[in-house]
């Protein structure tokens, strides 16, 4: 009996769900594929939140669906099935989706594909990414100013350009703020593994590190810091993670994808979508800087604000010479600014940063 009424209820719900669009217009079908669970607290959750914002913006004019926790090696089939299901535009938000998406895109020339954080494009596949290193510069500065032990830590996922850029930017600006600072890097070889992230954070705290920057996807580092009860700080990563403010979260790098998602879906609706490579920063608001915490002294907050404004205005680039590569060879001459090509394919870190890039 119970089962029967449950089934009946579900059928009514299903019918109600499919009966929209009485005026006959076709909604644009938009699909998202995430590498992590959609509630990882960081990277994938943020993409999902931004995609949901996009869907709410368009309301009935968009039919939004998503798949989460899709392994990269399985993604080609998922992209293909999504295209067969009639989606007009498909977003994939992991670096490793690049080649699988390229292969799927070649088979469905009428479907638009959008790949996050890669570097390949085709006629119907764009890539988009954010200049997170701009945010890292600000977090690095704050870290340099807030450490009392002169030891800061960086929880790194993989030695990919995105991460090498991030740690280099954080290190350069921590060092500028505090010449005595030392940065310890730990490689986790994963984007999302809360227990591993927590262990790494704890190990850093045990070594006397009192500011931890994370380049992984979960809230575990901030949770671990909070649980330690010591004077240790961290930052929100991907999402604002405001629940850890005012301490240990001092500020955050927020991935603000919604404006881009809205613009791209609108372009599909207007028939103006074109393949493009997009790399936006704080100025275009793709990288958001979370509110500076009250735990920061007045002067540190002012410095961070000034640094952010100089980056936004274009007056200052976080990678401005003189800067050498880790092996001591010259990279940027005095006053020279890093070019986009070097940054996108960055396979090294800056001089002085004591880290072994897994080789």
């Amino acid at each position, binding site marked *: 009996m119970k089962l029967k009424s449950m089934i009946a209820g579900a059928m009514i719900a299903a019918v109600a769900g499919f009966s929209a669009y009485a005026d006959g217009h076709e909604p644009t079908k938009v699909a998202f594929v995430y590498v992590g669970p959609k509630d990882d607290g960081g990277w994938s959750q943020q993409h999902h939140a931004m995609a949901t914002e996009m869907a709410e913006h368009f309301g009935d004019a968009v039919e939004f669906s998503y798949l989460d926790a899709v392994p990269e*090696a399985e993604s080609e089939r*998922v992209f293909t099935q999504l295209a067969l299901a009639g989606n007009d535009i498909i977003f994939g938000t992991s670096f490793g989706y690049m080649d699988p998406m390229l292969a799927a895109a070649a088979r469905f020339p009428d479907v638009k594909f959008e790949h996050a954080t890669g570097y390949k494009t085709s006629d119907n596949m764009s890539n988009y990414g954010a200049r997170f290193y701009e945010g890292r510069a600000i977090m690095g500065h704050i870290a340099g100013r807030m450490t009392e032990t002169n030891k800061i830590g960086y929880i790194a996922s*993989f030695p990919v350009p995105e991460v090498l850029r991030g740690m280099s930017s954080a290190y350069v600006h921590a060092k500028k703020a505090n010449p005595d600072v030392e940065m310890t890097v730990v490689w986790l*070889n994963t984007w999302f593994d809360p227990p591993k992230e927590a262990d790494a954070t704890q190990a850093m705290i045990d070594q006397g590190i009192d500011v931890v920057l994370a380049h992984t996807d979960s809230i575990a580092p901030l949770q671990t810091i909070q649980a330690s009860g010591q004077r240790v700080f961290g930052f929100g990563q991907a999402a604002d993670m405001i629940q850890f403010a005012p301490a240990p979260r001092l500020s955050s790098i927020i991935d603000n994808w919604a404006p881009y998602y809205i613009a791209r879906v609108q372009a599909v609706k207007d028939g103006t979508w074109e393949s493009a490579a997009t790399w936006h920063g704080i100025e275009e608001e793709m990288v958001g800087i979370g509110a500076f915490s009250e735990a920061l002294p007045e002067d540190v907050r002012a410095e961070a604000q000034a640094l952010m404004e100089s980056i936004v205005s274009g007056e200052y680039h976080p990678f401005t010479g003189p800067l050498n590569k880790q092996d001591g060879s010259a990279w940027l001459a005095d006053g020279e600014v890093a070019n986009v090509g070097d940054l996108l*394919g960055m396979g090294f870190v800056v001089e002085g940063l004591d880290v072994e890039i897994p080789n």
Partner: protein
Amino acid sequence: MIRLERRSEPNRLFAGITPVLAVVATMIAGGAMFAALGADPFVTIRTIFWDPLFSEQFASYSRPQLLVKAGPLILIAIGLSLGFRAGVWNIGAEGQYIMGAIAGAAVALAAYPLEAVWIFPAMILAGAIGGWAWAMIPAILRTRFNTNEILVSLLLVYVAEQVLASASTSWLRNPEGAGFPGSRNLAQYPSAANNEIIAGTGMHWGVAAAFIAVIAAYVLLSRHILGFNIRLAGQAPRAARFAGVSPNRLVLICFGASGALAGLAGLYEVAGPARQISIDFNVGYGFTAIIVAFLGRLHPVGILFAGLLMGLTYIGGELAQIMLGLPAAAIQSFQGMLLFFLLAGDVFTNFRVRFGGRVAA
């Protein structure tokens, strides 16, 4: 009071029908779960089991994909089933799968960009050796030092994952990949590509190898003295020892065979559907194959069907996510139910249920 009483002989009727009963029970319980999630259970079940095979919209793509998905599962599960029958527990097929892929891809990448007919056979050999060698670590530790092979083989999976990460970020990385992790795309290297034997069927060399493995295992177990020894060691270890079966030799053979087959599965995957060595190359085939082996009652033909069924729930489960917006966790629960009902069915095969009576204190 309900009591379970061990049967002197497993009930043959139950042994035969439990897989069918398990599938039916899974459909009922899973349907109730889907209904509770707000999806039409009949549409959902049809989407999972019917649409990948017969829907006009999807079948031309998803039917071949079924073989692509089932191929490695069957290949690995056949190897594992030999050991499981003999009471030798290789839980680390996932690691052997990774090492086979790395070894095979390394051969191809070393030969790149040379085009020659020997490259693909050499890769197959390297893949089998890679998996075999990785499986020999727990096997030899077991025979020499009597370590627990379950624990060692499982933990070596995590070691293999680190080797994989290192390979994709440094020594097998694509030198033309702008510093990004991942090897060259083997599918674009004709001598190394594991292409479909007949285009559009999903039938690549790994699927062919899986079918050959099914036949070979069937012959081995039913016609060969080694197969008899394997079965004997599992059912009556003492009797096997009296009959002159060396337990150590069996450990080495079972681990060697399952490791080599897992390594082959990895090689066919990396040169075919996965295209390249990458950090997240492994997606759990080595673990799912354990379920497939038991779902197929450790019988080669059973494993063939179990692998296809498992593949179907993956492909159909994805379709259900896409078309009906069901969460991935619901599909995983659904797959879990299948194993649960099958194992529950085994209770009735091996035990008699008695109602009433008293339990001795």
